[in-house]
């Protein structure tokens, strides 16, 4: 098990609560994510993991509680402003731009790094052309790194499911985020592809990326994570290293069951 590099808290969640009509999806949850670590959030279906992600990313407004990113409150900011601060994500239900090309999908990910304004774009001043070429080169390099370069010109909607998942990851990375939120990156992938995804996440983390990961694939979670948070019914029932979580009695009964033995 590798240890995270630095120890500052990049993300702090305090007393976070989200109630939908009748359901408390996340209930008074507090935890921290240290810069440079991979933290996993696990729990049975409906435990509130995606809701937690949506609150961090700004898609769902919390009923109560605070979210701090790099020491500053972000829980009132709109989604795009959080992306600007350095939070990028992938989605449990893919949210790619189906009608745009694979390359363009990743180029949209470079949006925040661009300078062109509506006016300068209309006039096509020289810097706009240069920016386009640079964005395209960067996006192409990312596609090459993820083995999608051959598909660059195809509509993203024509990709296989696994490739779409990889594309969504590449697109998120194009933002050069400081915190990466991955909602079930291996779900639906065959074994080999899931292993490759795990390897990619490990590599990213070696290069310094902080990752918050939701995943049902226990093998992946146990091998990747520095720290694991276990949710059930929106509440934390355990938090710690893979070893600690694996032995936690409440986790065993509430969630892992036979899967723990398999892993």
């Amino acid at each position, binding site marked *: 098990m590798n240890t995270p590099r630095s120890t500052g808290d990049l993300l702090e969640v305090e007393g976070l609560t989200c109630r939908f009509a009748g359901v408390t999806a996340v209930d008074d949850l507090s935890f921290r994510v240290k810069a440079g670590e991979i933290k996993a959030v696990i729990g049975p279906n409906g435990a509130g993991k*995606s809701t937690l992600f*949506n609150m961090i990313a700004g898609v769902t407004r919390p009923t109560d509680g605070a979210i701090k990113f790099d020491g500053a409150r972000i829980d009132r900011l709109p989604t795009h402003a959080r992306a600007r601060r350095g939070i990028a994500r992938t989605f449990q239900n893919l949210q790619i731009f189906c009608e745009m090309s694979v390359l363009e999908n990743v180029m949209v990910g470079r949006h925040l790094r661009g300078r062109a304004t509506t006016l300068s774009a209309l006039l096509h001043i020289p810097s706009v052309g240069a920016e386009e070429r640079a964005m395209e080169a960067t996006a192409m390099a990312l596609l090459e790194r993820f083995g999608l370069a051959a598909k660059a010109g195809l509509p993203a909607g024509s990709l296989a499911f696994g490739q779409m998942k990889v594309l969504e990851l590449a697109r998120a990375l194009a933002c050069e985020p400081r915190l990466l939120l991955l909602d079930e990156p291996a779900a639906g992938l065959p074994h080999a592809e899931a292993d490759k995804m795990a390897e990619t996440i490990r590599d990213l983390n070696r290069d310094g990326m902080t990752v918050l990961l939701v995943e049902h694939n226990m093998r992946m979670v146990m091998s990747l994570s520095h720290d694991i948070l276990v949710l059930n019914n929106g509440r934390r029932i355990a938090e710690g290293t893979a070893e600690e979580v694996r032995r936690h009695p409440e986790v065993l009964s509430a969630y892992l069951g036979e899967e723990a033995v398999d892993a």
Partner: protein
Amino acid sequence: MQTATALLQVLSAGIGTGAVYALVALGFNVVFKSTGAMNFAQGEWVVMGGMVTALLIGAFSSIGLAVVTAVVLVGIVGLLSERLTVQPLKKPDALVITLVTIGLSIVSRSLVMLVLGKKPVGYSGFSGNTALSVGGVSIQSQTLWIIAITLAFLVVMHAFFERTILGKALRAAAADREAAAIVGVNVGSTVLLSFGIAALAGALAGAIVTPLTLASYDQGAMFGFKGFSAAMLGGLGSLPGAVVGGLALGLLEAFGSFYISSDFKDAIAFAVLLLILFVRPSGLLGRADIVKV
């Protein structure tokens, strides 16, 4: 004393118009719920309801029979419209369906114009053109018919959505298409059903309001817009909202044209819509739409 009588008169007129708007808004909402689209054909169905009734009255010599037949016929037009234009779509998202309803509205309007003519048509109220006098306040008997028929239709609709399997399936599909599909609801047929109900509601509105306003092929856009404004006012997609929004809009218009000027009657719907969009986008009874990710 005189002002009190006048106020009551305006009030009754407002409730009558409001009931009609409520029906149009209900139709608008049903399609919005099942597809997420703005239905531009809604107003054309109102016009059709009035014009077909007028045509049939000559043949049937019974107003009741003419109204029922016209409403059923327009309901079938709604069903056919969906089968012919929405169902064959390759990518039926809200944008494309909205565009399709724009096409439907153009075709419906020109069909009405070519087949039923450009001249406005009308017929007498269901109890003749009588006015009742209640304590000095004179109320058109047709206004009472409008209120009664609207109420009856709302009760039937409520029972349909709450009691019947079909109605429940429609609600389930509106709440969550994918989940509904998983539990075996045929989502395609719920869209069909929503078009049928919307056309029924629209045609009924047209059939009962025509004695007061006349019907002409070019009124559809205005009715559609009023229905939409009422639906927004009450909360888009909410059925009780359609009633509240329709009545509120009808009353606002009635009092607006009484106190300000009837020239601005139509501008009032627009001003109300703008205000709602600014201040409370989810309307009086609506909840903000939540997208599950």
